[in-house]
């Protein structure tokens, strides 16, 4: 790892100021992606501004069916929150299968979304749930947030503070994990809401997470795995790498979508 200067922020405002005062600084939340990346010398921020001790970023709160998850909430905390499991178990299931237990004790929802790894799990949930990403500057609809590989609508000095969404009628997540990394080779989150069904796919798209409209239409007619029988998706725009071809991923999307619907209906 190249030299860096560590700073610990105690508020969002202080973090923003620390970044502004730095040369080429970066925010770090749980650090489960950024620290390994720095160790490989693929990132070399002059300054690291630690967000992990900012209390305003922590915790999960509810208002009726409205859920708000602080950006600094760890995957382990989301996975084990009983109240959240009561109204949206799919997101707890998703969080409980990110990485491994040690990673889940450090990694945060805000960090995952800001990084927008094309194979990360959370982007699928946030997009399918039609969630809102709250930041230090504004609120961004999920549909406008994800902007391609490792790219989001966030500005350089903008910090995600929370994610909010209305609990869906039903939701499910199924992923085919890469056996080595546990990242999604393909992961599908389905959410049934009063205004229709949303299906978001991670791990498979060349531009990161995306909605699968063909599957949404079929599931809006009948929210049952059988509604997806016979659907084959085009390969255009899907990732092809040493782990899986675009054709294989296209097939996996439908298989995972069926399993996600099954989980949602269980």
């Amino acid at each position, binding site marked *: 790892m190249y030299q860096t200067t*560590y700073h610990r922020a105690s508020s969002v405002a202080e973090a923003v100021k620390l970044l502004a005062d730095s040369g080429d600084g970066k925010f770090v939340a749980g*650090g*489960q992606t950024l*620290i390994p990346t720095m160790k*490989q010398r693929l990132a070399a921020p002059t300054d*690291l501004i630690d967000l992990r001790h900012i209390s305003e970023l922590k915790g999960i709160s509810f208002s009726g069916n409205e859920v708000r998850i602080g950006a600094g909430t760890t995957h382990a905390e989301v996975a084990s929150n009983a109240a959240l499991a009561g109204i949206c178990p799919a997101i707890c299931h998703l969080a409980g299968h990110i*990485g491994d237990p*040690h*990673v889940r*004790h450090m990694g945060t929802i805000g960090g995952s979304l800001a990084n927008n790894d094309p194979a990360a799990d959370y982007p699928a949930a946030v997009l399918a749930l039609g969630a809102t990403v709250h930041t230090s500057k504004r609120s961004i609809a999920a549909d406008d947030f994800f902007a391609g590989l490792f790219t989001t609508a966030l500005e350089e000095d903008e910090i995600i503070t929370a994610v909010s969404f209305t609990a869906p009628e039903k939701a499910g997540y199924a992923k085919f994990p890469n056996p080595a990394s546990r990242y999604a080779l393909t992961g599908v989150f389905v959410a049934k809401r009063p205004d229709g069904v949303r299906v978001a796919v991670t791990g498979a798209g060349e531009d990161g997470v995306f909605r699968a409209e063909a599957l949404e239409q079929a599931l809006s007619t009948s929210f049952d795995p059988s509604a997806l029988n016979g659907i084959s998706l085009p390969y255009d725009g899907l990732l092809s790498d040493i782990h899986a071809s675009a054709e294989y991923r296209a097939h996996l999307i439908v298989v995972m979508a069926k399993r996600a619907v099954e989980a949602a209906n269980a």
Partner: protein
Amino acid sequence: MAEISMTVNGRKVTATVEDRTLLVHFLREHLGLTGTHVGCDTSQCGACVVHLDGKAVKSCTMLAAQASGSEVLTIEGLAQDGELHPVQAAFKEYHGLQCGFCTPGMIMAAVDIINRHPNGLDEKTVREELEGNICRCTGYHNIVKAILAASEAMRGRAAEAA
């Protein structure tokens, strides 16, 4: 340089380290606690697992400065008064190791797993929970047996104490 202070195995320590110093290197090279191992150095193998404020984390994936102000427990801090921790004792009893390199991380992970499952464990859960710990000798069977036995032993002790 970063001024850091933390409690390691119940002992308060302070030091001045390079900001980029990883927690695992601070433990091994500054404090001489070489029980925590560096296996893969790419955040996958779990040989470096320690407890940070009671939770298992990978000490190779965290700066020492990030851990400043926290309580850290390493493999050296598990045994009390010369008596092995129940998980250590179970690893010995069930021979939950082959070459032993992954063992400190396995044991720290196991203690965390048992702490998070006070009502007991089954084999499937243990195997899932060990996802972040790799044994290059592939000696998982006895590791799993040891963790299941330790879980039972610790539940027995908790019941006795209650």
